[in-house]
């Protein structure tokens, strides 16, 4: 958390639990872009990512009393977003399987829209970024989650361990293996 803030995340959620709606708004402002980056890198779909982030904040609103001050707010909110993103990915996978199985011999092939066209942000090197994003998408889910949280979101190993609910040693091992896999895929770029 940024130390320049007047209230910590935990103070804000506590105030929100007592009915302060302004504290909720402050939390949304603090985390909306961080969560958006995390979910977008995970799903590679801007609109879907925004829906997931919205659902995450809606869950925060409706289930505010589920938060216990023993955990850091950031790990709690990332856990919710990560779980929702994984659920969405499973649904997407099921839909894709259904669609392909229903495809007849005379049916046209799917035209998969380019995701980057939907993304309204500027990059220094779109080519490099697309390559990295594609390499991230190739990673298994448990590697993908930890590598995004560590190298893009820059969270600590301990925080990642809390978010994905696996031991610290496993987190370190997964991050290392994800980096090795990415390095292999991106060798031509580096």
């Amino acid at each position, binding site marked *: 958390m940024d130390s320049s803030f007047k209230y910590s995340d935990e103070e804000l959620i506590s105030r929100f639990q007592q009915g302060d709606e302004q504290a909720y708004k402050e939390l949304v402002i603090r985390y909306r*872009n961080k969560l958006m980056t995390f979910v977008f890198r995970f799903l590679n779909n801007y609109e879907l990512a925004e829906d997931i982030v919205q659902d995450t904040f809606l869950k925060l609103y409706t289930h505010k009393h589920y938060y216990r001050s023993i955990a850091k707010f950031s790990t709690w909110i990332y856990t919710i977003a990560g779980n929702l993103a994984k659920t969405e990915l499973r649904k997407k996978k099921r839909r894709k399987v259904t669609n392909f199985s229903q495809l007849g011999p005379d049916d046209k092939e799917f035209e998969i829209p380019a995701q980057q066209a939907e993304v*309204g942000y*500027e990059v220094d090197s779109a080519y490099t970024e697309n390559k*990295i994003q594609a390499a991230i998408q190739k990673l298994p889910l448990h590697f993908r989650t930890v590598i995004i949280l560590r190298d*893009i979101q820059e969270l600590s190993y301990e925080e990642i361990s809390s978010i994905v609910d696996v031991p610290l040693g496993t987190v370190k091992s997964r991050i290392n293996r994800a980096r*090795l896999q990415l390095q292999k895929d991106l060798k031509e770029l580096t």
Partner: protein
Amino acid sequence: MDRYQFEDTVSAYLDNELNLSQRKEFEDYLAANADTKDFVADIKNTIEALGKMSKIQISSAFMTNLYSAIDQNKSRAFQKREKNKTIFGFTPLYAGFLSVLIIAFIGIGLNTITNYGDAAPGMEYSKQDEIFPDPKGNSGNINPDVLAITESDTTDSLTEIHQKKYNLQDRIQLVKDR
């Protein structure tokens, strides 16, 4: 340290997560194997490339959409609460039915009790009518006692009836009379 151990600890080395002895062991392996330096550099570049990836900004309509979703959720929750509202554990519909049923039972019960109360004296009157039939030929639930009070000659009539009823002297024939 062998190649596998080296690859397993490369991230920990770059993240400065190794203790002094582990770090020394790692650096010794690096110094002994020339190709490993490039490998470590590649991993480092990958990490840096990931870190340089652009941060995704949420759309300008996000806050509006979020608050609209919250409002929808609130109204859904309110409707659900209203739907699940109970009166003594019954839904309003069932409670209504039950109330109508209870009122009907009470109504029928009261009506039955009232009719029963009326029917009992009525029966007495009809018996009295049989014993003391109305001289004017009126039938029904007319109390002969009331009739006796209202009609002035009732006492005489009663005496006459009594006399007629018990004056059996004309009808009794004694053996001696034959």
